[in-house]
């Protein structure tokens, strides 16, 4: 029996704005009157490490998405998409920003960063669809590379049971007013990307 309406796993690297995406979804879900749960990474792991956020819309249980249970994997960084691919349901979709952030193990020459295709191919095997996008380039079109996470949120909006109106209202709650227009544009461009 289904235990959640929509399970989302958002991954990236500390500082990329993973928590903001979950915060917008959570606030929009509250506006929609749906129960919502989230789980965040704080503390030590945030320092340049992998960051994972679980968000469950229409769920009254724990905030943690189960392995094989995510309807959507939203990855702000390609290697992190593959690192957390085991959360994807076979029916799920992966939305992947293609710009790599090199970990210190790579910059110091201890490990190799795989080519994008090496990441996307195994990802395609575990889920229904993978949508790669250069969210940084799209965010720059909207006026600021900083809005990369909001581009990804726009793309995500195609796959979650929350209306655009509520998501944009929630976005306005968390983004400083002077950046709101650029962020709304980033949202629209991200949404158009997966049309």
């Amino acid at each position: 029996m289904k235990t959640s309406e929509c399970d989302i796993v958002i991954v990236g690297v500390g500082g990329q704005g993973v928590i903001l995406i979950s915060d917008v979804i959570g606030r929009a879900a509250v506006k929609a009157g749906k129960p919502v749960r989230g789980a965040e990474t704080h503390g030590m792991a945030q320092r340049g490490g992998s960051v994972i956020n679980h968000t469950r819309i229409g769920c009254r249980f724990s905030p943690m998405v189960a392995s094989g249970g995510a309807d959507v994997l939203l990855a702000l960084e390609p290697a992190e998409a593959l690192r957390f691919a085991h959360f994807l349901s076979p029916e799920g979709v992966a939305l992947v920003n293609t710009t790599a952030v090199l970990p210190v193990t790579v910059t110091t020459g201890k490990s190799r960063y795989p080519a994008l295709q090496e990441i996307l191919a195994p990802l395609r095997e575990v889920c229904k669809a993978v949508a790669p996008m250069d969210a940084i380039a799209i965010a720059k079109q909207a006026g600021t590379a900083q809005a990369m996470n909001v581009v990804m949120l726009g793309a995500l909006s195609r796959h979650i049971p929350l209306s655009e109106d509520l998501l944009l209202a929630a976005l306005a709650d968390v983004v400083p007013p002077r950046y709101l227009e650029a962020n709304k544009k980033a949202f629209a461009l991200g949404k158009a990307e997966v049309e």
Partner: protein
Amino acid sequence: MFVREYLLGNVAIAKGLLEAGVEVAAGYPGTPSSEIIEALADLKGDLPLHVEWSVNEKVALEVAAGASWTDARAAATMKHVGLNVAADPFMTLAYLGVGAGLVVICADDPFCHSSQNEQDSRRYAEFAAIPCLDPADPKEAKEMAVYGFELSEKFNVPVMLRPTTRVSHARADVDALEARPGRGRQQFIKNPARRVALPVHARPLHTELLKKQAAIEEALQSAPWNRLELKGDAGIIASGISGLYAEEAIQDLDLDVSFLRIGTYPMPSLMIRQLLENVSRVMVVEELEPVVEEQVERLARKVNPAVEILGKDGPIPREGELDFLVVRNAVARMLGRAEKPALRVAAAEKILPPRPPALCPGCSHRATYYAMRKAFGKKAIYPSDIGCYTMAIGMGTVDTCLCMGASITLASGIRFGGETEGICCSLGDSTFLHAGMTGLLNAAYNKARITVTILDNSTTAMTGHQPHPGTGVTATGESTVQVSLEALAKALGAGLVETVDPYDLDKAIESFQKAKEFPGLSVVIARQPCVIKTRRCGAGRKSFAVGEDCAGCQICVDFGCSAIEFENERARINALCTGCGVCAKICPSAAIQEVRR
């Protein structure tokens, strides 16, 4: 009127404290507890509420106890290992009791997401014989924060609220009420028999504490967080967040099983008995220690010795976190249903580079450790401590990490144990003020010939940049006395105290050299504000680039800053550079130069 919000567990707890009319809240930062005090400081507004970052957890609990004894509702916040520091007042407060309600919020961290161990604080509550409330989610955490005060006042005993990482750092839709203003201006009422723990007072108070346990249990029996549903011959008992994993498993598998959710300690024995009388098999689902399981076993011997009890000896691990799949599969196995294996993606395990947490680009700790190692050499011993700098383990300057402040005392013991090499230990400014000062005093008094490095980034960085007595700012942003680390180190007996700017590498190496040669206790204070804070303040930064002279020696790459990459046999500085300029100083070819913009 309530407002429904999407709240972080710790913020929900803060809202609960405010709804209960808390008047004094004190804590020391520690993941996953830090946001409670931060939220209180944010939400306090005009309320007559004292919120403080205390110097350590023992101090926080004693400040809260003093307030409680002055008839002001009080809370102390800490992480699980912080309760070890506060254990002294914690144990005896249970005897002496409270004035107004006193809630000790102790956040546990199963799986050590950001901790040095995964101890289970429910054991501490049991040890002290005080009630413990074990929330499953932010909503329960908020309600329990409110109820904790009532329970504390009713039974004249401190109450523990014990969220775990997945509660404190979870978010959920929570209904929050308005803050209730405290009553303001109370008085301390003298009562030696209840406030002075002389043996003659402690003995009867211990008897009294033990006697009230039954009444506390009876009161908790009907608490909304203990729920029993009887159906079917198999049972599940689950506590805290494990209760949610179990409920999800029951729905996912569409089961008819008897189910008992436990949210309080002392546990609802009557409910456990009732369940045991009605089942032939029962699984106990809880994270970490078998606290519930032991009670279930004790009661089963009296009620139904034939019942089969599954738990820590079988399907439920005693270490780490549980999750839905672990619990679902354990339940499925018990009932002969199909298990759902956790997915593994082979390519992820094979081709992905690890991404461990690391010091930030431009972090001054890296420069300090570089200078320290240049002066002290490879053979020296480098005890370290709890903070961001523990992540410098790859630099060869972190030989130990035990608990807050232990760098100095371990260094002393290593010297007294017979080590003859140089010993240079390091700890952060906040850690030094928390538990390093006594160690430094002890090192001076007992003539330990060691060097103590205080990595002073003028904040408590790891836990999210909380102020401390060295910063001149309080938890609520008021300015206050700024304590001098140099004056403290001298007063505690250090023979040599040097202050260096770690970005000024040559001078820093010189100071470490001087400290190494000093025939006594030396202290080096390496001072440079945390780069994250500097960046947030929008301070202008220099730009650096690698020029034609790069010989590809990789000395800068080995320095380990993530702003330095190596491609096509040459170093390259990427956009993460904060402009500290240390790499330019260590480059033997002078190939890294400042770029004028």
